């Protein structure tokens, strides 16, 4: 084992760590907080079995991962959690996490390195999709001593912190005692909320964990409730049966909330971009008009993003500039400007590329994306590009995208504007590759030798952003803005300050408090 780690990881603890049990002595948790979701994924209570971002809301409220990350403004913000600090080897293949002392599980037993190793070894054995990206690169997880856990990777990974944040740590002793089956019914974790009960397809009830090291919740009871229907959500919010609609999708709900004096619409930034990728470019050798950069630029110029944001997103979003790089973030070069909606230029570019009269292509969509696809197709019509809309069922779509069998055309998709995203999209041969471009791949690989942080952002800004902007590897559309409908009797300042926890769905309800 490599004991000679060169420490280049910065110890972040000093000013970031929230003082232990800052307010637990003074305030007793009271009251009930009900948060509404459209769905909670597979609603698993098992920290390695959740399947979609939505189900993370449950396990990440109950549990605490090694590292918490928050999306704040245009960048990620990693905060020590169960790991109080971490070190990274220069080759980015060995990650060492120091486990914080004095963390207890909900049943009062202390959390040790053994629990961390136990949890992560379960991850490595799981065939489930969500575990895949982590386990495919981890060689081993082991305890170095009683306060350090060592992760050895197969390949260098500058984004490992992100992966380290995806699994809550579970108690080894308890899990082994009751068995995995029973654990998934009555789980115990070390997060700010204790599990009380669950009804599949309906709700999960939790209770404040008063022994939490980071933040004791202000509310006594937290209920995450599944309400698929928007009007019902709104009615519940209006009557006070619920306190928060966690995700207000663009639509009539937005104005309803804006117009109600008891409610607020709180918009939070997200890293999520809606974009279009070219189905032929995900493979190296398929002939396609999109191989020509000018065609991609033309299609991009012919989209009126402002109109789309206004009409289809109720203003909850902003035009995106370029693939996978967040506009106005430390990763964007200051010389870059929003893409102008310019049909004339688009036409010129198309003629130069040999398509003066445009061409025919296909737009692959699932049912929920129809409106957006139709809007785009009608805009392209003006430059002669006739995009036929092909609707597919979700499962079939997933399979076709995975196997890269979609015919030549474009597919609407969403991804995260983070360096990790770039790493997935810009290298050849990956599952999420959007383009085969030598220079882009070379730049991306170079970026990935720097651990995620200001230095990496600097590199992206200076070396990559202008190139990506010009290359148009995928057609950028909209940076989504997430919105929550909140009752006015809830104090949200602390919650808004902390940012969006994890990918997006985790409620971070411990930072919400009743207004006096």
């Amino acid at each position, binding site marked *: 084992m490599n004991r000679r780690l060169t420490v280049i990881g910065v110890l972040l603890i000093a000013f970031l760590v929230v003082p232990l049990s800052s307010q637990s002595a003074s305030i007793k948790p009271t009251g009930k907080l009900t948060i509404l979701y459209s769905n909670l994924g597979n609603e698993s209570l098992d920290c390695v079995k959740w399947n979609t971002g939505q189900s993370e809301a449950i396990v990440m409220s109950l549990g605490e991962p090694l590292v918490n990350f928050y999306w704040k403004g245009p960048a990620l913000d990693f905060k020590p959690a169960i790991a109080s600090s971490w070190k990274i080897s220069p080759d980015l293949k060995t990650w060492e996490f120091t486990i914080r002392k004095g963390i207890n599980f909900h049943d009062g037993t202390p959390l040790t390195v053994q629990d961390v190793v136990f949890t992560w070894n379960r991850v490595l054995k799981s065939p489930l999709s969500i575990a895949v990206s982590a386990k495919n690169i981890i060689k081993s997880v082991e305890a170095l001593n009683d306060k350090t856990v060592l992760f050895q990777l197969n390949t260098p990974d500058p984004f490992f912190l992100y992966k380290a944040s995806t699994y809550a740590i579970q108690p080894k002793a308890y899990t082994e005692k009751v068995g995995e089956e029973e654990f*998934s019914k009555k789980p115990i974790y070390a997060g700010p909320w204790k599990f009380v009960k669950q009804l599949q397809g309906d709700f999960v009830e939790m209770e404040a964990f008063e022994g939490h090291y980071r933040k004791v919740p202000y509310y006594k009871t937290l209920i995450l409730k599944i309400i698929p229907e928007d009007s019902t959500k709104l009615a519940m919010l209006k009557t006070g049966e619920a306190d928060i609609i966690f995700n207000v999708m663009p639509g009539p709900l937005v104005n309803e909330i804006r117009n109600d004096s008891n409610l607020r619409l709180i918009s939070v930034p997200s890293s999520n971009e809606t974009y279009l990728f070219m189905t032929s470019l995900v493979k190296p050798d398929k002939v396609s008009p999109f191989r020509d950069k000018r065609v991609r630029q033309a299609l991009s110029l012919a989209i009126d993003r402002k109109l789309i944001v206004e009409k289809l997103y109720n203003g909850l979003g902003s035009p995106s500039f370029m693939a996978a790089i967040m506009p106005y973030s430390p990763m964007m070069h200051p010389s870059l400007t929003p893409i102008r909606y310019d049909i004339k230029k688009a036409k010129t570019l198309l003629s130069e590329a040999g398509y003066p009269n445009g061409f025919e292509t296909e737009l692959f969509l699932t049912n929920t994306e129809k409106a957006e696809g139709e809007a785009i197709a009608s805009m392209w019509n003006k430059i002669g590009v006739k995009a036929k809309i092909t609707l597919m069922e979700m499962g079939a779509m997933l399979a076709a995208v995975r196997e890269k069998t979609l015919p030549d055309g474009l597919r609407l998709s969403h991804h995260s504007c983070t360096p990790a995203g770039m790493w997935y999209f810009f290298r050849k041969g990956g599952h999420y590759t959007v383009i085969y471009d030598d220079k882009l791949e070379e730049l991306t690989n170079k970026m990935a030798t720097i651990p995620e942080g200001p230095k990496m952002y600097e590199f992206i800004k200076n070396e990559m952003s202008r190139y990506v902007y010009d290359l148009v590897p995928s057609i950028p559309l909209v940076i989504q803005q997430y919105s929550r409908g909140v009752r006015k009797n809830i104090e949200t300042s602390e919650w808004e300050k902390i940012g969006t926890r994890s990918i997006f769905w985790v409620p971070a309800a411990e930072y919400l408090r009743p207004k006096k």
Partner: protein
Amino acid sequence: MQRYILKRIFLAFVTIYLVTTLVFFLARITGDPMDLIMSAESTQKDWDMMRHQLGLDKPIYLQYTDFIAGVFIGNFGNSLRWDKPCLSLILVHLPATLQLTICALLFSWVFGISIGTLSAMRPNGLMDRFGKIFAMLGQSMPIFWVGILLILTFAVRWQIFPTSGRGGLLNLVLPSITLGWYTMASMTRMTRSSMLDVLDMEFIKMTRIKGLSEVLVICKHAFKNAMIPILTLGSLQVGILLGGSVITETIFSWPGMGRLMVQSVFSRDFPLIQACVIITSTIFITINLLVDITYGYIDPRIRYQ
């Protein structure tokens, strides 16, 4: 009568078996659940392992025989989506659906039958006109719209009832009305026409000639004779509601079978789809059986066949 009942019971079992088989193969037409479970990055090993875990690696006829054998001992396997035994998932959702179904049917039958009867007693009278409009509204307004309307008026504006969710008796009122109104419409019409037919019969005149009170004429003679089509419709309605009115359950966030079934279809959760269909159809078939037997009790001509 005994032979009649035995025959019905035998037919019920055959039907359940056929439904079971049918749903097994139909569920598999929806596609491969693995598409939804696995990620793009999953390796072949992950795929094989998952397939094996879910029992999807066996040939289809073996899957089928395993499945039938399981059904016999009440084992429907684990839900792919929730990773819990299907039966236990159903057992937590079924009471909600039963409760809603029973209340909705009570509402629809009590009102449907009384309005229908009163309408038939005075065709084109005040009650008949009111009943016609009421029924027409119930049948023509989309359930979705009725639900939202009731929520907005009674839960948001007047705050008499909770907007949604399962809980006390108050929670039941709005969803039962929403669901019951729709079925009530057809019940009103069926009762009215069936009663009109019966009231026109000579034997009803005869009961009046005997000097029987109107209550006896209507409730004893006319109603019993009008009962069979009403019962038939009623048992069909039970079936419709048991399948769960997905829309009502969605609007009122009612944790019942309807939502469970839709979710299981969307996630290609074969075991759960199968279990839901088998359980609801078994209940439905049982109710039909009971209704068939009741026919026998009501009508001696069926009994003495």
